[in-house]
């Protein structure tokens, strides 16, 4: 069982066998810490959650909402005075000018060569693997973290070994 599966199970229980979950937790301090956090959050939520409204209160509220939505909205007509009319016309012309300038600027800019650009950040002590599939593009981004008994430094050292070796190529 993997740590991400365990964490998902702890956050939204129901998918995994309890005995194997307990077995994993007893052997994985990271998931155990996560489990403690989840328990703490549940306790806080249970202590502070608001009371559920009664079904009659819900029905009354729903009926009021429906009535409000079905009523036509009638706005009072107020005639604008002369200077207000000119002001509105001026604002309209200014808005049109701004839209026109923005449009021209947008058209004159060079089209980017790449339609969509991602942004990935590699955390200290992890190796990031972005998986691509031919038709769907990015299908997952996986952070390879230190395994049990390893530290972040071990991961960095492993990466550095690969980097150093590849740098020493080509290997003809």
């Amino acid at each position, binding site marked *: 069982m993997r740590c991400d599966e365990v964490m998902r199970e702890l956050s939204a229980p129901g998918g995994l066998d309890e005995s194997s979950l307990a077995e994993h937790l007893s052997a994985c301090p990271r998931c155990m810490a996560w489990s403690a956090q989840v328990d703490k959050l549940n306790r806080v939520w249970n202590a502070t959650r608001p009371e559920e409204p009664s079904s009659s209160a819900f029905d009354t509220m729903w009926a009021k909402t429906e009535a409000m939505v079905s009523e036509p909205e009638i706005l009072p007509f107020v005639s604008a005075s002369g200077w207000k009319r000119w002001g509105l016309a001026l604002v309209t012309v200014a808005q049109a000018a701004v839209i026109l300038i923005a449009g021209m600027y947008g058209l004159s800019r060079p089209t980017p060569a790449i339609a969509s650009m*991602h942004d990935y950040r590699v955390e200290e002590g*992890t*190796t990031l693997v972005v998986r691509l599939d*031919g038709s769907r593009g990015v299908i997952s981004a996986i952070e390879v973290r230190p395994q049990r008994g390893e530290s972040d430094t071990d991961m960095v050292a492993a990466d550095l070994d690969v980097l150093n070796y*590849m740098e020493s190529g080509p290997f003809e």
Partner: protein
Amino acid sequence: MSRPIPPQPPFRRALVVALGLLLTGMTLPALAWQAVPGRQVTLFGIHAVPGGNAVDPKLKKIEPQLKKLFPGHSFKLVKTESKRLTVGRSVTCTMDTTGFIAGAELINVLDGDGNVQFKFALELNGQTEFATLVRTPPNQLFFCDKMLPDGSRLLIGLGGR
């Protein structure tokens, strides 16, 4: 036995000046080059086949690291390129067998978070298949794992130091 004739004083002075100029001309560009911030950037491609166990002799030295990152695969080195880059310069790596070209441009030698920034792109037949900004601590790797039509994978590694 004949002794070499010592050069005349004006000629000797000119020789010293010429030598001085020559040495200055040789060392200054080297010093200037070292002062420009840059990174040694490495791009490499590995063909990985799921279910296999064979490892290319060229990758034997880093087999444990590769098996840790991609367990249950066989590995074959496709290509490796390494270049010292300054900001705005790039390195490309043509993955001969697959037709893919991977490229990395150095964007920032060290950003505010202590990361090196690259623009990474993967192309096939002149079309950009994938492009991303990669921010990684120095000496740490970013991998792009491209699934190929036959189910095997092209692993492209990128790192800078």
